[in-house]
C-alpha cells in the first residue's frame, strides 16, 4: 500500500508546482499524470505555440531586415521543421519537469488517476492512500456542437500546432487568445486567415480600445476578421471544410476550433464523488478547498481565467494550506494575461468598460513616442493605464505592441503591492527601454506626460 501526505492528480503547471511546493514544506508527495509531465501548457499550449510564434516573428523580422540594411535575399521556411523545433522545446521542458520531480522526491504514478473516495486514489492497479488530494486535471478544448476536430480539415489546438500541411485558406472559430495567436502565426506564413468571433470584439476579455487596435493591426496584415458573427453548417470532407458564415457559404483548407475549454472531470472519478461544480468547473473556496474534506482543486479545472500562472499560484496556496501555512487568496483582478500575437497584447486588472460607475483617470502612451520602439521599428502599440480618481489605485493596465508581454509584470507588481500613482511616478524606469512607456502612461493619466 502506498501512503502519502499528498496526492496530486495532474502534472501540469498547477499539479507539478503543487508537488514541488508541498515537498519543499516537508510533505511526502505523489503525483499522477496520464500523459506527459508539464500538462497542456508545456506540451500542447503555451510552450510549443510560443516556439512557433517565435519562428514567425523571426521570419517577419528577416523579411523586414532590408530596413536595417541587411540584405538576406529570398527567405524560405520549413513548416515541418518549425513544428519539430516546437516539439523538441516541449519535450526538453517536459524532461525538465521530470527532473524536478525526482529532485524533489515526488513519486510519479503514470496513468489515469481515479479518486475512489477522499483519501483513496487508484492509478491502474496501484492503490494510493493520501491525507490530501489536489485535483489539477486541467481542461480540454470545447467542441463546437457535435463537430470534433478530425485532424484532417477540422483542427483543435493540438492539430493546429502540429499541422500536416500549410493551409492556403484557414478559418479560425473563436478570437480569444488561442485563436488570435494561431491567426497571427498562419497569417505570417502567408495563409489567408479568416478569424471569426461571436462576440462583438476580438479578444473579448481585453479592453475594447486595445481589442480595436489589435483588430486594425490584424486587418492590415491581411487577416479577415468577422465579429458578432455566427457560424452554421460547419462540415468537412477529405479535401475541404465548408461553413455558412453570416448566411454566405465559404470553403477553407482548414478550420481551427478555439471556442474555449471545459474542465477535465471524467475519468478521474470527480464526477462521481459529489464534488460541487459551478458552471461545469470545480467550485473551490479561497484556499482551493472543494466541498469534500481533504480534496483541493487548482488551475483550469476550477475555471477561468485558464492560465498556467494562475494554476501555479493556486498550487502554492493549496500546498501551503495543506502544510498549515498562512495563505493569501488569489485576487482574480490581479492575474495578468498575455496574447503572443503580432502585435502582442498584455493586460491586468479592470478594463475601462468596467469603470462606468466610478471616477477614474486614464493614461495613454503610444509606442511611437518611445525611443526604443522607434529604434526597433516596432512603434505600433499603446500602453493604457486606469486609476481610481480618488485613491490613485492602479485599477488596470492594458498594453498592445511587440514586447509588451515582457512588460506587464511591472504593473502586476504594482497592483500586487497596491502601489498608487505616486509610487509609480516615483519609480525610475531605465532608458532606452519600452518600459518607459509604462511610466509615461502613468504620467499621462495625471497630465504629466513628458514625451507627448
Amino acid at each position: 500500500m502506498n501512503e502519502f501526505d499528498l496526492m496530486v492528480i495532474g502534472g501540469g503547471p498547477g499539479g507539478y508546482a503543487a508537488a514541488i511546493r508541498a515537498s519543499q514544506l516537508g510533505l511526502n508527495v505523489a503525483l499522477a499524470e496520464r500523459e506527459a509531465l508539464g500538462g497542456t501548457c508545456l506540451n500542447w499550449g503555451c510552450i510549443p505555440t510560443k516556439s512557433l510564434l517565435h519562428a514567425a516573428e523571426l521570419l517577419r523580422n528577416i523579411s523586414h531586415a532590408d530596413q536595417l540594411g541587411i540584405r538576406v535575399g529570398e527567405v524560405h521556411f520549413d513548416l515541418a521543421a518549425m513544428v519539430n523545433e516546437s516539439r523538441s522545446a516541449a519535450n526538453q521542458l517536459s524532461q525538465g519537469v521530470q527532473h524536478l520531480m525526482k529532485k524533489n522526491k515526488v513519486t510519479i504514478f503514470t496513468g489515469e488517476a481515479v479518486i475512489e473516495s477522499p483519501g483513496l486514489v487508484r492509478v491502474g492497479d496501484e492503490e494510493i492512500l493520501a491525507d490530501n488530494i489536489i485535483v489539477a486535471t486541467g481542461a480540454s478544448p470545447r467542441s463546437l456542437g457535435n463537430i470534433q476536430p478530425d485532424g484532417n480539415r477540422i483542427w483543435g489546438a493540438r492539430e493546429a500546432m502540429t499541422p500536416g500541411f500549410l493551409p492556403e485558406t484557414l478559418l479560425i472559430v473563436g478570437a480569444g487568445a488561442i485563436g488570435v495567436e494561431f491567426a497571427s502565426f498562419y497569417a505570417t506564413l502567408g495563409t489567408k486567415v479568416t478569424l471569426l468571433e461571436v462576440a462583438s470584439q476580438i479578444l473579448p476579455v481585453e479592453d475594447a480600445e486595445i481589442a480595436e487596435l489589435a483588430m486594425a493591426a490584424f486587418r492590415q496584415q491581411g487577416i479577415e476578421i468577422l465579429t458578432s458573427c455566427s457560424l452554421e453548417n460547419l462540415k468537412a470532407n477529405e479535401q475541404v471544410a465548408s461553413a455558412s458564415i453570416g448566411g454566405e457559404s465559404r470553403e477553407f483548407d482548414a478550420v481551427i476550433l478555439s471556442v474555449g475549454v471545459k474542465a477535465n472531470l471524467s475519468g478521474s472519478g470527480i464526477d462521481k464523488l459529489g464534488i460541487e461544480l459551478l458552471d461545469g468547473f470545480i467550485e473551490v473556496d479561497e484556499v482551493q478547498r472543494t466541498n469534500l474534506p481533504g480534496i483541493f482543486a487548482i488551475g483550469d479545472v476550477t475555471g477561468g481565467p485558464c492560465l498556467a500562472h494562475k494554476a501555479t499560484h493556486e498550487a502554492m496556496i493549496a500546498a501551503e494550506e495543506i502544510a498549515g501555512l498562512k495563505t493569501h487568496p488569489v485576487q482574480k483582478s490581479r492575474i495578468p494575461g498575455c496574447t503572443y500575437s503580432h502585435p502582442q497584447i498584455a493586460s491586468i486588472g479592470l478594463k475601462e468598460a468596467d469603470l462606468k460607475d466610478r471616477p477614474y483617470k486614464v493614461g495613454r502612451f503610444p509606442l511611437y513616442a518611445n525611443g526604443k520602439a522607434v529604434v526597433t521599428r516596432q512603434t505600433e502599440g499603446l500602453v493604457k493605464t486606469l486609476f481610481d480618481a480618488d485613491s490613485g489605485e492602479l485599477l488596470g493596465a492594458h498594453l498592445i505592441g511587440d514586447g509588451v508581454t515582457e512588460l506587464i509584470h511591472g504593473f502586476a507588481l504594482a497592483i500586487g503591492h497596491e502601489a498608487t500613482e505616486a509610487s509609480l511616478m516615483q519609480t525610475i524606469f531605465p532608458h532606452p527601454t519600452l518600459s518607459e512607456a509604462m511610466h509615461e502612461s502613468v504620467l499621462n493619466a495625471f497630465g504629466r506626460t513628458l514625451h507627448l
Partner: protein
Amino acid sequence: MTEGMVSEWFIADGDEVKQGELLYALETEKINLDVDADASGIVRHSIEPGVNLAPGDVVGYIYEPGETIPDALQAIPSRAGEGEVELTEAVTVSSDNAVAVATAPTGRLKSSPAARRLAGELGVDITVVAGTGPGGRIVEADVLLASTRIESVKASPLARRLAEQRGIDLSTVTGSGPGGRIVQADLDGLKQQSVPKVAATQATAGEVIPLKGMRKTIAQRMHQSLQESAQLSMDMLASMEEAVSMRSQLLKEWEGEARPTFTDFVVKAAAKALLVHPQMNSVFAPSGITLVESINIGIAVAVEEGLMVPVVRDADKLTLKDISIETARLASGARDGTLNLDDYAGGTFTLSALGMFGVDSFTPIINQPQSGILGINRIFDGLTWDQDKPVKTKQMNLSLTWDHRVIDGAPAAEFLATVVELLSEPYRLLV
C-alpha cells in the same frame, strides 16, 4: 524652577569642547542635569560653580576656533552680535533649560540639527531615538532607522492612502497580506472613524498635531487607565523642614558621589511606606489582587514630546544615596534616549513631580496596572503653630491617586500618612 547653579564645569576655562560633549552640571532644587555643548569651540567660563543663577543668565561662552579670545570676560559684550567680538554661542541657563532641569530637557537632547529636522519631517519622536553619533548624539541615520521602526504598521501605499482618506487608524487594523501587511481588502467594511470637525462659527481650526508616537501611546494609556479603574485622589501636607536641611548636609557630605533631590527623598519614603502597606504595591485583576513583592518605583520624566517613566528597581533595598545615583542616571538617560527598555519595565508604583511648576495639588493618573501614584508638589514656606505662635515651616503637599478597587480610603490615607511621616523625620530614610 526659579534658580539653579553650575555645580561643576566639565570643560576647564580655555579648553576646547566638541559639540555634544558634556559641558557643565546644572543643579537645581529638584534635579541635577548634565548639559552638553551646542557648538564646538573654546570654552570660557563666566561664572564660578555654586553661584545661584536665574533662568536666562549666561554662564559662559564658546568661541569658534580661530576667533580672537579676549583675556578678560568683562570686556565681552553681554549680547551676541554686539561689539567687536562675534559670539558664536552663549551658554546660558535658559528658561527652557530650567524646565529641563526639573523634568523636560527639551533643548538639551543630543541631536544634530539635520536629525531634528528630519525627525520633524518624518514625524519621528526624537526623544525615543537612540543616538549612535559621537557621545550618543542622534544623527540623521538614527532618525531614519527609527522612522522605519515607527512605520511598523505595515501597509500597502494604497491602504495607507485609503486609511488617510477614510480617517481610519491603521494601527487598529489587522493586516491579511503577506507578512501581516495591511492591504486594501482589510479596510473594506471598516467604518469611517469620526474625524473631529470644528464648527466654523465656534472656532477656527488651527494646526492639527498628528496623534502618533509617544503622544498616541500616552493618550491611549491614560484614557484606558481612567476607563478601567476606580481612581480617586487625596492630598496630605508634609513638613519638609528637616528634609531641606538634611539635603543641604547630604549635598556636602556626598559631594562628587551623589546629589540627592527631594524626589529621591520621596522615592525612598514611598518605598519604605509600600513595605508597610503592600496593597498599594499591587495589581488588580478580576481574579484577585496580586501583591507584588518587588518595589520598583517609576518616576515620570517629561521629555520633549511627552513623558517617560524610567523605573528605580528594588527601591526598598537601595540606600538614599544609591537611589540618588540611580535617578540621576535614569533622568539623563530618559532625556537623551540612552536607557534600555529594561529601565522602563517592571514599575509597581509611580511618582510624578510637578512642584517645579509651582503646583500644590493635582490628581495624577495611575500608570496601569499599578494601584497607586504619588504626586510631588512644590516646597513652600508654610505655617505651623508653636503654641499660639506661627512658625515659618518648609512644607510640601503630596497628592496620592489610588485605585479604589484595591484599597479603600482609610488604608490609602494610612499609606500617605506613612510617607508624610518619613519625610518629616527624614533621618529614617537613611536607615
